[in-house]
């Protein structure tokens, strides 16, 4: 060991620093479990997928199902509604990006990108206003659907079109589309 008489850094200093650092790292490591316990737990994650039978939904009707505790809008759109959604140019949109959950590549929010090919009449979207989380109106016949014929959020006045795209109001983004696939012509699996 080096002499401690002329060296100002002593063995004891080193032990102090090392011990404090060790305790600090330990405390910080314990902090993470305390934070992470608040994240969605295994049961929340396990409700990941559901199957929905589409056969009872007539053209022009819509149903709402729950997936991961969120309402999912499923609408059987009329041919006019599909045409209206397809006719929209990307530069008319407030949010030109298709918000597809779990998708890493960003695609333009065309009606094609938001639906499954061959099943264009079906629109499936998370029924939560992207402003502050209210449930927009428009699922039931007779509901106010706003100026773009899709959905209208009564909370702060956001209006969505028939492809769930935000067109007017404070909501920043389009309705999200959950990951789903067609199992048959009348059955989908969400999640």
């Amino acid at each position, binding site marked *: 060991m080096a002499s401690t008489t002329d060296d100002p850094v002593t063995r004891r200093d080193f032990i102090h620093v090392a011990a404090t650092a060790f305790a600090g790292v330990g405390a910080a490591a314990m902090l993470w479990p305390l934070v992470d316990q608040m994240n*969605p*737990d295994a049961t929340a994650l396990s409700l990941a997928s559901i199957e929905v039978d589409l056969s009872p939904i007539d053209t022009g009707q819509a149903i709402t199902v729950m997936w991961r*505790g969120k309402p999912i809008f499923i609408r059987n759109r009329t041919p006019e509604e599909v045409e209206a959604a397809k006719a929209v140019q990307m530069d008319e949109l407030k949010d030109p990006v298709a918000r597809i959950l779990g998708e890493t590549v960003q695609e333009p929010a065309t009606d094609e990108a938001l639906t499954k090919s061959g099943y264009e009449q079906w629109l499936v979207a998370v029924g939560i206003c992207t402003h502050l*989380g209210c*449930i927009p109106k428009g699922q039931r016949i007779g509901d106010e659907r706003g100026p773009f014929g899709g959905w209208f959020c*009564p*909370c702060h006045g956001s209006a969505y079109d028939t492809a769930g795209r935000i067109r007017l109001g*404070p909501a920043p983004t389009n309705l999200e589309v959950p990951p789903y696939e067609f199992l048959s012509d009348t059955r989908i699996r969400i999640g």
Partner: protein
Amino acid sequence: MAHQSTYEPKTAFTRWMDSRLPVIRMAYDNLLDFPTPRNLNYMWTFGGILAFCLFVQIVTGIVLAMHYAADTSVAFDSIEHLMRNVNYGWLIRYTHAVGASMFFFAVYLHIFRGLYYGSYKPPREILWILGVLIFLAMMATAFMGYSLVWGQMSFWAVTVITNLFSSLDSVVSGLGTGIVQWIWGGFAVNDATLNRLFSLHYLLPFVIAGLVGLHIWALHVTGNNNPTGVPLRDPKTEALPFHPYFTAKDGFAIAVFGLIFAYFVFYMPNYLGHADNYVEANPLQTPPHIVPEWYFLPFYAILRAIPSKLGGVIAMFGAIVVLFFIPWLDTARERSTRYRPIYKYFFWLLVVTCLALGYLGAKPPEGGYLVAGRIFTAYYFIHFLIVMPVIGIIETPKSRPQSIADSILGGGNSSQPAVAAAEKR
């Protein structure tokens, strides 16, 4: 002016205690003997009233928690059960619910008292900052408490307010959503959310109690401000011991406050609440109008005045954050607005602005309401960021009494006879 202890233990027991744990000395110095300016007006009684409110909330809250079940399937029913079947359950719950409103009513008057008399100015900056922290903790507590009822307003208020954090998605993609799901413990407001809100609603009042302890400690280091803003010079002529003079005065004020409180509890317990909260939470149906409790309305109006989601959130939190900086934003030489001929108009303009924002917070954000909301929001910030620093520099204060004694006894400096006379009671 830190106060010298004058406590003298008289019995063998108190002497024994005093040399081991001098709590009796502490209580004597702070609650009985503390020299308090003689010229305090009734605006100074709200401190005592607020302590009373905290006490009421804690006592009634602990009783509520004995009957409440924090489980989304039964939470709403457990409160209905409390109201109908538990002996005096209705009284305990109404006292707690009305108590929250009374608490905010008192805190707002207390805050405006501080603003009017410049009680945030040196040396009371820390005292003021502790007050703002208490206000923040109160807002968090009341928000969480309201969610426990698990009515429609509870559920949608939690949904809307927690979703505010999702605005951070526009800063770092995914950050906001991550935070919101972390707060929820799921992908929507759910049972896990209710449980953590209950846990924190139980905890925070005790944090508030701790902050109140620090607040009073800081108060007793600097001493009370007073309506003239002139520092206390001679405690013998200008101050009185807290007990019995101010315990009696505060006690009287608490009694009057208690009458108003009781009037609400017994005659209009639901007047300040919202009828939709007697409908059980339904995650599939948003009520037509989501309105927060009245004490949050000014902040809600600020949130909605800004057309961008992130901007609205920043403005709303900014409206509270700006309060922390008031001690340094105010450049005035004079503490009390009494002697500030220009600022006094702006002070009342701020009061009107806050009331107007409260009114607008309950209205739909459209047309004239939205325009008015924007104008008042702008003034709210202009007041603190521009009016306070600028008026303080350009204004010439009116002459004021040289001392508290002058102001009460009318004697002293002959160069200011008018003021001294006006101060005479």
